[in-house]
């Protein structure tokens, strides 16, 4: 399959499988060869979860894995759209737009891959990192650190342990893994020839960025923003960067930490 340019398309796809992970989260497998064969880690889809025009906009969901003609997404219920996702059954039709955006690999441009990558994920931010881990290969992963809130995330945490063998797990309330944030699991400075790839809540990402003020260019963060078009047209998803407003959907979602004006980000 040829993966033409950065321009996502709309596909009528079908749910191939649904694995609930507990506490309102789950893993959906979607059959759509065009997306599965072209997606790279960090890219996402816009998935329209309902019938008719309500909900109106597609929900951005990171590609959590892709192989053959099937890609996976991990969701957690936060509102109407994700609640509809949670009710999907095998065979249900879904409309997906994708693959969208600049992933971890593309965001690095022409640079050779580093020897080691540290993965840091918060909550469902784990999803694109799973896909990244698969593509990086085990040997290149220095360390995987994941954070969740704690209570109410038991099922999700079990899945994290299964998906990321050897993961260092932290939780805000201390009920799962070690009490604390992912920061506690990260080194004081980045080892030579290594990078940190991160995805999670904005507060976590900006804390990481602040934690490594001199490691510019070696920290890649996948950001979130509210979106309408997912193709660069509406300018709804922009964030402030050192080079002006950039669109999370097509200029991101992966940015280097040094590009982003973390203090001027408004919460999503």
């Amino acid at each position: 399959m040829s993966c033409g340019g950065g321009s996502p398309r709309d596909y009528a796809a079908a749910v191939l499988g649904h694995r609930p992970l507990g506490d309102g989260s789950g893993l959906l497998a979607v059959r759509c060869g065009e997306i599965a064969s072209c997606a790279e880690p960090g890219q996402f889809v816009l998935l329209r979860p309902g019938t008719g025009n309500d909900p109106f906009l597609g929900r951005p969901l990171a590609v959590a894995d892709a192989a053959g003609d099937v890609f996976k997404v991990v969701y957690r219920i936060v509102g109407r759209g994700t609640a509809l996702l949670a009710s999907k059954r095998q065979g249900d039709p879904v409309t997906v737009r994708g693959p969208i955006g600049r992933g971890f690999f593309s965001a690095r441009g022409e640079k050779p891959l580093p020897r080691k990558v540290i993965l840091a994920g918060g909550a469902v931010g784990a999803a694109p990192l799973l896909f990244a881990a698969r593509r990086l290969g085990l040997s290149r992963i220095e360390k995987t650190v994941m954070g969740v809130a704690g209570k109410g995330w038991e099922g999700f945490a079990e899945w994290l342990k299964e998906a990321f063998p050897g993961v260092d797990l932290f939780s805000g309330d201390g009920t799962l893994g070690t009490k604390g944030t992912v920061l506690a699991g990260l080194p004081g400075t980045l080892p030579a020839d290594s990078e940190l790839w991160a995805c999670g809540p904005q507060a976590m990402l900006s804390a990481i960025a602040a934690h490594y003020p001199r490691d510019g260019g070696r920290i890649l963060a996948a950001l979130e923003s509210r979106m309408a078009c997912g193709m660069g047209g509406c300018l709804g998803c922009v964030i402030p960067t050192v080079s002006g407003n950039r669109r999370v959907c097509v200029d991101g979602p992966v940015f280097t930490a040094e590009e982003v004006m973390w203090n001027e980000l408004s919460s999503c």
Partner: protein
Amino acid sequence: MNSLRADLSIAVGGLNLETPVVIASGVWPYDPVLWSPERLEGVGALCTKAVSLQPREGNRGVRVWETPCGMLNSIGLQNSGVRGFLKEYLPIAGKSGIPFLVNLVMESEREVRENLSILRESGDAIPAVELNISCPNADCDGMAWGISPESAARAAAIARSEWKGPLWVKLTPQAPDLPAVAKAVESEGADALVCGNTWLGMAMDLKRKQPVFRRVTAGLSGPAVFPLALRTVWQVCGAVSIPVVGCGGVSRWEDAAAMILAGASAVEVGSSLFADFDLPRKISEGLADYLADAEIPNLAGLVGLGRKEKEGGRPWAQD
């Protein structure tokens, strides 16, 4: 669109459109890589994102928000200014073979004059201008020009004097007396009216207990507003004789047909592209089938057909 069952071409305000489906301003990207002509199947013309004299950063904070069958936006006219536009976009825009309209911000008289004189330098490369006197999302009070017949007439007159090519003027449904505004703009020589822009709405952030948008209000668009937009199209078409382009909530070919029956010569499609990139093709096919089934020979034959007298010869209420 060679497979269409009927000829959908129509002349609207100085442009010859292959189909009456126009992509509304602010929804399509400039980027060459995202801009592939085969994405534009079924499209008759395309409006650019608003272009202002100087580059604009647009609004801070949340910019888009979902609503039932629609969305609010507060983009705030982010654009790289007319010079940036000519440099980045013009070379690509021409390539698609589809006519485009430069959506022009109207902040001040001076701005529009300068803007148009810069555009004039590009000569025929600019097929048409869509004067935006209706943006609700900027501090420049872009919408204020469209509120009263007097100011709208003034805006149209300035643009007309500076731009001899096709000039469409995009009205705001926030005008208290929209037919009067439409007439005023018509009398200043506009070639077509776009009716209309977004509807002033608002959203509240329940977590932070404050308005979602920094400017509090934002523009509502999408299928939710279609019945309102159709009503304004009916009213405006009853008031003017220049072509009217319906805009607001068109999400199915049936909506386009309804606006055309009400008197519109074409429609613009905005937010519903976010739900389906393939919408222009679907609308064009639906319209062509509708014409073919009704044995109406061409699109012009459908324009205003829904305004014919009711049974018994009583006229339709026009309010």
